[in-house]
């Protein structure tokens, strides 16, 4: 058991833009650091005087060897994180929550499906698989975004082609877009899926995950072979504040990554 403690100071080693409203921030500890994070786990990042938000780790090792988080400026805290510059200090605590089940996925085909910024918590999975490519079967990465301009890690996604089957789709194409148009589930139709040996990891807006997971089940993937990463309001990440409940689950503790078999029925209840 761990005693809840204040966050540890981390210095911003680098920041870079991903889209117009989204940036990545690389953090290194100023003193001793936190225990290692696993893909899918999250940190609470504290912006001085502004507040604290949960953010999934989007790369376990950045260019400076630090933890990378990708932040979209949607509220006061995320806007403050978006404005961070190298040399600034934040408070960091974690690792919190469950990660993607990569041990179970060993030797299996892996299907990574992301919507929007939902690609951020999944990127460490792709990194892990590419590092140990022989340890897994086929790897497919399906990415959906609202517009081409909202696509994060665009160049990096291109670099995954080859070792992985990569497909990208957008809801609203812009000029010069030659890729697919439509919701991410449409990409499933063009996939040669081997349901009995595939594990799917899904992250994006809740409605997208619901549709995607259902689409996978229709394509005969067993619900316990699908994992989703869920989001609720979160104040503490240590199971004490009560905000992140989803029915029987405390998402900071039992999530954010949960088997679809455990939540399929919960996602159908409005306002749960």
């Amino acid at each position, binding site marked *: 058991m761990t005693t809840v403690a*204040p966050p540890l100071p981390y210095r911003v080693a680098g920041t870079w833009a991903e889209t117009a409203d989204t940036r990545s921030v690389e953090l290194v500890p100023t003193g001793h650091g936190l225990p290692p994070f696993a893909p899918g786990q999250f940190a609470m990042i504290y912006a001085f*005087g502004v507040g604290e938000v949960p953010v999934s780790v989007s790369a376990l090792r950045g260019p400076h060897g630090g933890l990378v988080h990708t932040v979209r400026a949607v509220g006061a805290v995320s806007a403050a994180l978006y404005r961070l510059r190298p040399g600034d200090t934040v408070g960091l605590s974690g690792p919190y929550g469950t990660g993607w089940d990569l041990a179970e996925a060993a030797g299996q085909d892996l299907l990574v499906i992301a919507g929007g910024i939902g690609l951020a918590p999944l990127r460490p999975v792709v990194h892990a698989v590419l590092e140990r490519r022989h340890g897994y079967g086929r790897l497919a990465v399906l990415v959906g975004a609202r517009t081409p301009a909202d696509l994060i890690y665009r160049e990096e996604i291109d670099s995954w082609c080859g070792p992985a089957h990569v497909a990208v789709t957008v809801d609203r194409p812009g000029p010069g877009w030659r890729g697919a148009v439509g919701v991410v589930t449409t990409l499933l139709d063009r996939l040669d899926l081997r349901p009995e040996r595939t594990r799917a990891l899904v992250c994006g807006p809740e409605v997208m995950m619901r549709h995607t997971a259902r689409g996978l089940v229709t394509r005969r993937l067993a619900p316990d072979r699908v994992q989703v990463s869920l989001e609720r309001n979160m*104040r503490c990440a240590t199971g004490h504040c*009560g905000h992140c409940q989803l029915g029987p689950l405390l998402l900071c503790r039992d999530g954010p990554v949960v088997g679809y078999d455990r939540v399929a029925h919960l996602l159908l209840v409005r306002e749960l």
Partner: protein
Amino acid sequence: MTADADVNTSPALAPDGLVMGKDGLAALVDVLIRHGFTVVGPTVRDGVIVLAELRSADELPYGWGVELEAGRYRLRERTDGAAFAHAAGPQSWKPFLHPPRVRQWSADRTEDGLVLTADQPAPPRCAFLGVRPCDLRAIAVQDRVLTGGAYRDPGYEGRRSGALLIVVECTEPGATCFCVSMDTGPAAGPGYDLVMTEVVDEYGHRFWIRSGSPEGSAILAELPTRPADPETREAARAGVADAADRMGRTMPEADLRELMAGTLDAPRWDDVAGRCLTCGNCTMVCPTCFCTTTEDVTDLTGDHAERWQLWDSCFDLDFSQLHGGPVRASSRGRYRQWMTHKLGTWYDQFGSSGCVGCGRCIVWCPVGIDITEEAAALHDWTHSRAPDEGSGPP
């Protein structure tokens, strides 16, 4: 006030407990204060029996009882002079163990960078005098939530580990009590340091007292007691057994966890939403509701910031706020969250019910919403529905 050697009996030597008179209660408060405890117990203030610091046993609510109903609390004078013949008041022990506002840490921008410092207050050691069995269970429930998981709340742990729990078994349940349904009373469960049962009859005003911990025994050894006589023990047991038969409320005879999980779409939620003010009072008076929010405050210099934890409530619209708006936008969704959590999903999260049957949520709801009545209505709905399933036209 020295304890007589003959009655200075350890619990091991007095399995039947000891008996002390009203003077023993006065001695108890004095002994606790001498041991360095801040004594907190029931006392009459503002027309209700509150829990507050006691300087002497004279401040106990001798001769006061309460009349409880949904949305209504009134003091009633009693002729027997009993000190603990009253059911749950407006507070539980929660404000003392899990206070409404706690500073958790501070952050300072210094020349050496960001310095984050945990608050490490030395809380006073409190002796809680007059803990009802339902509230004893509530403390155990909060223990599991705040210190029983992967993370311990250090502030709660500090306050809790210093607390001495002196339970008084319940002999006078209120009209809103249902501890029997929740299996939390009126007899005391485990976890106390001392337990007393108050008896007032033709043989006098006295307390049957037993110890549940070495620390309880040490206190007990300093009190003017005598070995428990069978008559007092019997009267005490009868008083508690009688209380069990006089519960003002009952929960429906059903597995409440299943009932909650199976009625998420019941029309009754709309009905209760029509009455619910979403004021949050039920959650604040509930002895197990633990939810908190955080506030990050800065001073005007901008170089000093603090993290505060405040009681929060699932009835606040902001409680479930996400980037796209609140998850539980309707009062229906929020009332359902509170009740299904309390009676149902608490089991999944923390291994027990979140309800101890104290009835405070019923009494202190300004519009008198009654959780037992709501549970009964949901139960009725499942029963009225079951025979129709699959039999009628779609």
